[in-house]
């Protein structure tokens, strides 16, 4: 279980460019949840998730993972990091080994696994992120941008963390690749009871995948709740530089135009279920006239 209690964090405190990135954040995430985190650029998303595996220490407040306070000197941060796998924003810049396979093995080997075990996990993780077997013996620097991204994500997956945190994992990927990775992650979330935190600028992705959404605005939690609760407040979301999924906008417009559509439509699936009967009904009316 992940818990933040009134956490604040300031970059370069005391200097001329002091920046309060997080301001009194409290939240709780239960095991097995799929959580989406959205917010305008610079709202503190990346800062917040770096607190969750001890890469940053809060200035005040407490970060608690499975009952262990990360600021406590007795807490073994390495073990926390194996438990909470964090894939940073633009992770492709962390690759360094001679081959992709070796690079993916870096995490598992640090955990103290045998070489054989590590490679098994690495191959599995590469498969999960859609990296073809033929690339595994190549140098990571010869891959394309998207392939590098997949290799970097695989490097985290191979540690088989209980909690997986992804910071904009799909920025810069092609649409097919984006869906492939996200659906594999949802699959893992369902099958292995993985807790997932997904930071994303795509309202569609978050709407489709997350059970619960946290909205950050200037270092504070602006709102939280399940997708239909959050995306119902479209006016406020727009005010803070965000938006609602396109399909929600369509539904809102139709409702304004007088169509009988309930609020809280945020995936194309919902829209399909609601709109199709409406259209059929209208078609019938047209025919009858």
């Amino acid at each position: 279980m992940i818990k933040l209690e009134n956490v604040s964090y300031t970059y370069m405190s005391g200097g001329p460019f002091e920046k309060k990135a997080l301001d009194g954040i409290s939240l709780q995430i239960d095991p097995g949840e799929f959580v989406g985190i959205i917010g305008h650029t610079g709202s503190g998303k990346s800062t917040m998730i770096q607190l969750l595996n001890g890469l940053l220490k809060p200035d005040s407040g407490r970060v608690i993972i499975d009952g262990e306070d990360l600021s406590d000197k007795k807490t073994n941060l390495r073990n926390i990091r194996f438990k909470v796998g964090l894939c940073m924003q633009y992770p492709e810049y962390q690759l360094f080994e001679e081959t992709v396979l070796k690079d993916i093995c870096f995490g598992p080997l640090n955990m103290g696994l045998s070489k054989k075990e590590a490679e098994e996990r690495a191959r599995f993780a590469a498969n999960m992120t859609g990296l073809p077997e033929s690339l595994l013996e190549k140098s990571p620097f010869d891959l394309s941008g998207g392939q590098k991204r997949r290799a970097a994500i695989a490097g985290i997956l191979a540690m088989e963390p209980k909690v997986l945190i992804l910071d904009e994992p799909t920025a810069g990927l092609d649409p097919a690749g984006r869906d492939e990775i996200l659906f594999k992650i949802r699959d893992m979330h369902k099958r292995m009871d993985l807790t997932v935190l997904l930071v994303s600028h795509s309202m569609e992705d978050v709407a489709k995948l997350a059970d619960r959404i946290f909205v950050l605005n200037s270092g504070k939690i602006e709102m939280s709740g399940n997708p239909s609760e959050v995306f119902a407040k479209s006016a406020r979301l727009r005010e803070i530089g965000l938006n609602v999924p396109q399909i929600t906008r369509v539904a809102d417009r139709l409702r304004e135009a007088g169509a009988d559509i309930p609020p809280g439509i945020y995936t194309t699936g919902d829209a399909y279920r609601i709109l199709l009967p409406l259209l059929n009904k209208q078609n019938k009316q047209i025919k009858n006239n």
Partner: protein
Amino acid sequence: MLKDITLGQYFPGNSFIHRLDPRTKILIIITYVVMVFLVQNFIGYAALALFLAVCTTVSKISPKYLIRGLKPILVFIIFTGIFNLFLTSGEVIWSMGFLKITREGVRFAAFMVLRLIFLILGTSLLTLTTSPIALTDGMERLLSPFKKIHLPAHEIAMMMTIALRFIPTLLDETDKIMKAQSARGASIDSGNIFARAKAMVPILVPLFISAFRRADELATAMECRCYRGGEGRTRLYELKYGRVDFWGWVYTAALLAVIILLNITFGSF
């Protein structure tokens, strides 16, 4: 660890010190360094301390920040002190086994440590009150008379600008890469020296790659904008000497006079 490096960190402001022409500031700093070496007694250091204190107050930079600049070379300062303390010969005032401290050693150690501290504080004040761009501009103008003897003044200044510009970027990048590898369980600051050296590989490789990539991109970007060196290049902001520069020199000259006077009156040590 990386947060302590104040090199190239500039506090924007509009104080007397900030408004000095960068050329004046560079020349004053050179004079200041000469003065630090000229000082022969502790009263002279008191005068220097007063000079710096006044400059710092005028510049409105928190002394805390100035002192923070000493942190990275603290080890060096301590070593200098210890070496001079134990290795200077003279009248022994304390000894234990082969270790002995002499009266001269104490004085000399204090002297060297003060000298280092004053050098760093003075130059930090320069970089804290002068933007890197202004600094290299001033440097270029000061060096331009030497163009006649084929000193590539513009190129030197451009290289310094670029280097200074990229220090914070590379520090940021290092920080990010270190975090990314720690997230994969790399232990950077534990184990013996070999383990530590090996642990640097996952950080240095990506860092070098990204530095080369950046250099490449920058070169392309500069070429796209038709950069072709200093020949015939005009500038957006021309440097101009003003009244503040005059008063800056008066102040510095006064200090120089005081220090020479103190040296004559009180002699060395």
